[in-house]
């Protein structure tokens, strides 16, 4: 039976209480990754201004690929253009992509973007700046964030820090690390002063369709085997019963004679 994907090596911790909606992360990402002008890999989710004057509130959070432990996009991709690396980075291979955009429909977080205006369009999504990681640098968004709203590090450290902040400031955060359970768990983790649905985060459930899919797809041979055994058994049983019945009938006939 299938197990969950391995624990990510790296993770993001994004703290909505620190985001000031300056969009430095968006520019840093676009420049680092040479993203065309009409699309973006990272954007800002927001509550809008809520409350009544002068008791107003507004919260924002940068939002990018969750790097799922069991990525639905990888599962949906028919040509292997999306893969999950050993470190837990969900990567995209533009040369393998056929542009079917199943990944966009499969992603419960509505993350993959598409270059609708390009002649040879690509899917646009965060790859954790793995090229920068290779040079010992942080991903561009985390490196530049002036308030530290985006942190990057070992996944375990990010998860522990998320819980530490919530435990130390229960008045300040909702008791929910978004991404710890969502879609079966993700490498990008969020904490927030307001419920995530108010920030416009999707309710992604706690199991990944990819995980359920795999249960089905990887379970098929077993089920088929079991069915073969069962059906064979049934066949043999029925056959045996039939033979017995026939024998009995024959005996009865003989007895009547």
């Amino acid at each position, binding site marked *: 039976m299938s197990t969950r994907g391995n624990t990510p090596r790296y993770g993001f911790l994004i703290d909505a*209480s*620190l985001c*000031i*909606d*300056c*969009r*430095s992360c*968006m*520019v*840093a990402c*676009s*420049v*680092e990754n*040479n*993203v*065309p*002008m*009409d699309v973006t890999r990272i954007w800002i989710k927001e509550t809008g*201004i809520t*409350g*009544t*004057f*002068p008791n*107003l*509130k*507004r*919260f924002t959070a940068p939002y990018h690929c969750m790097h799922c432990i069991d990525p639905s996009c990888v599962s949906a991709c028919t040509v292997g253009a999306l893969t999950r690396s050993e470190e837990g980075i969900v990567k995209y291979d533009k040369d393998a992509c056929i542009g079917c955009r199943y990944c966009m429909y499969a992603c419960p977080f509505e993350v993959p973007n598409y270059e609708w205006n390009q002649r040879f369009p690509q899917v646009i999504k965060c790859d954790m700046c793995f090229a920068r990681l290779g040079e010992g*640098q942080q991903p*561009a968004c985390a*490196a*530049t*964030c*002036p*308030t*530290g709203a985006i942190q990057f590090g070992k996944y375990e450290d990010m998860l522990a820090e998320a819980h530490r902040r919530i435990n130390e400031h229960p008045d300040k955060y909702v008791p929910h690390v978004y991404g710890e359970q969502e879609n079966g768990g993700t490498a990008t983790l969020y904490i927030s002063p307001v419920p995530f649905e108010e920030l416009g985060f999707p309710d992604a459930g706690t199991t990944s369709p990819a995980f359920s899919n795999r249960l089905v797809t990887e379970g098929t041979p077993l089920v088929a085997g079991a069915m073969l055994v069962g059906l064979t058994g049934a066949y043999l049983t029925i056959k045996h019963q039939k033979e017995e019945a026939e024998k009995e009938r024959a005996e009865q006939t003989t007895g009547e004679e």
Partner: protein
Amino acid sequence: MSGTLSRRSFLKLGAVSAGALVVGQFVPPAVAQAATNAGLLNTKGNGYIPSMCEMCVWRCGLIAKVRNGRVVKLDGNPDHPHSKGHLCVRGQSGLMNTYDPDRVLTPLIRVGKRGEGRFRKATWAEALDFTASKMLDIKAKYGPEAMIFSSTHNLSQVQFENLLYAFGSPNYGTQRSLCFNAMIVANLMTYGMEEPERIYDDQLKYIILTGRNLMEAISTSETSALSAAIARGVKVVYLDPRFTKTAAKASEWLPIKPGTDLAFHLALLNVIIGENLYNRSFVENYTVGFEALAKEVQPYTPEWAAPITEIPAETIRRIAHEFAAAAPHALAHNGWRTSNFVNSFQTQRAITILNALIGNWNVVLRASGGESSSALGKPPQPPYPRASAVRLDGVPSKFPVVPLKIGVFQELRDNILTGQPYQAHGWFIARQNPVMSLPDRTKTLEAFQKMDFIVTVDILLNDTAWFSDVVLPEASYLERYDPLNPVGDKVFLRQPVIDPQGDARSALWIYKQLGERLGLKDYFQYQDEEDYLRQQLAPLGISLQDVKAKGYAQLPEGKAAPEYSWNTPSGKIELQSSTLAKVGFPAVPTWIEPPEPPQGQFYLLTGKVAQSTQFGTQNNQLLHKYADEPRLWLNDKVAADRGIADGDWVEVASQVGKVHTRVRVTPGIRQDCVYLTPGYGHLSKGLTTAFGRGASSSVLHVTYADPVSGGQALTQTFVTVRKA
């Protein structure tokens, strides 16, 4: 040219053309060679070069990633105290200033009528000879004072000043009176320095921000520090008529009535003095004039301030108590663009004095080193000629306490128009856009028409260049050297990370070339930019090569300044200022009633957004992409009453001009205010990205100068709003 070019295709295009140039050209470009010598680039021309940002005046340290002779990414320099490894959104976008398809890459000479935007390309020799001959003509006919020189705060400013002083003109325009004159002059009168440094340490407990929108008007390290302080639980009280992104992060947002911050702070002083909550020993030892201050603020009770500020008296009293209880770990922040009303100088004085009363000196505030260092050398030069003419901006005759290096820019413009006390004939403008920045643009354009000759130095055909006779293309901040910049115990270097594109040249080169043609050769005794820097570094015994490699040099440890002394006439903190008294201004802060909008009109608020700096970054394609569309903020209830919906077009009119703009309906602004993002409504069609976007607040702004500091009262403009 299309409004939005794909940056990817643009970079590819650039790479191809750069590649084409390299064929058959075996000598590596100068910058790449120098960077390779300094160990920053490998033999393939790839690597990282430390330099300094110029997307605003905070001047963060940056590290440029260079690939094949192109800069492909900028990151914050962890070694620089202003960036600490981060860059703000403007800093991240900086390379698109350099690679802006609208860059001016050759000198231009006007051929059409002024403002038609028709120019022809010229060589440097022709453009410089022409400029010098025009300037010499004006000098010969009308005297050197008939040439105005204006430039916005930048690292080459020292050589700009050198040019103007050597030329002999007293007429120097900076942008400061449109920004923070009130704060600077208040600090000079109180502490004897332009702006004390703020210390955000772990002890800090309480901050009052008077309109300092640090989460949108970003100064990277200070924005980081404020954010960390808030996360740590520091209480932040934020005064602003608008629910800004800072208001959203503050512990307490007070939507104060515009122009009444002075009343709020006078009431804080009243409570802190009246209830003996001040630091008595600090006040006795280190300040002068406490009695006069106490007497003056005695009537300014919270109950007095409440109806003026529209903040309840109990709130003001509570904040005074909280502030005093947090002393000395409490900060009353002076703010940044602080000239809002003609009483703004008094507001700034009240804020500086609030700090002094709780004795937070050397705890939360301390003496700042400023931007010059006596440890650095400079090229030798003869003394300047004496400028005998009075200044057109009324400093010091009309504005006796405004420093000469700061001036009153809007007054200068007004006296170009009046021709009093004499007529100006020429204007030399460097890296500045007065057509956009000065209040009442119509007047500024009229002043331009009074000029026989206008020359502008810039990287783009900005609105001022558009109306100029000669445009001299400057190298961008990623393409040039500037003089060294001392910060704390280090001096930082701006160095080119790529070669200048086209014929663009550094300001150091342009001023020297022009100086030589003006017969002022002896004032520019440096061979080139590197020679200038070597002369600066000579007393330190540090090689330029080392500074280029690290991006900075360590300064020798200076003599520790005496802990508690101030450069004021008394040597103490002047609660009562003898200087102000001498020239007939109130010596202690006093209430001055600001004007209010007539029935049915609104205060016109202005204020920064994170994605632009003043008037010079709206053409940056990255910032253009990531900034919100500039619209007029209008309170939701007011909009409903007037039948105006979000996105509707409106006409906004003041007594000096009108603009059309779309509306953003929001609960995040007082009902008596509207807000317009500054920096939009460009006139130059040479700015293909920015042209046609948004409306200009400068068209609406009425010209007022605070009588003490000369600061333009930017919020003292009242407007009508009607559906277009």
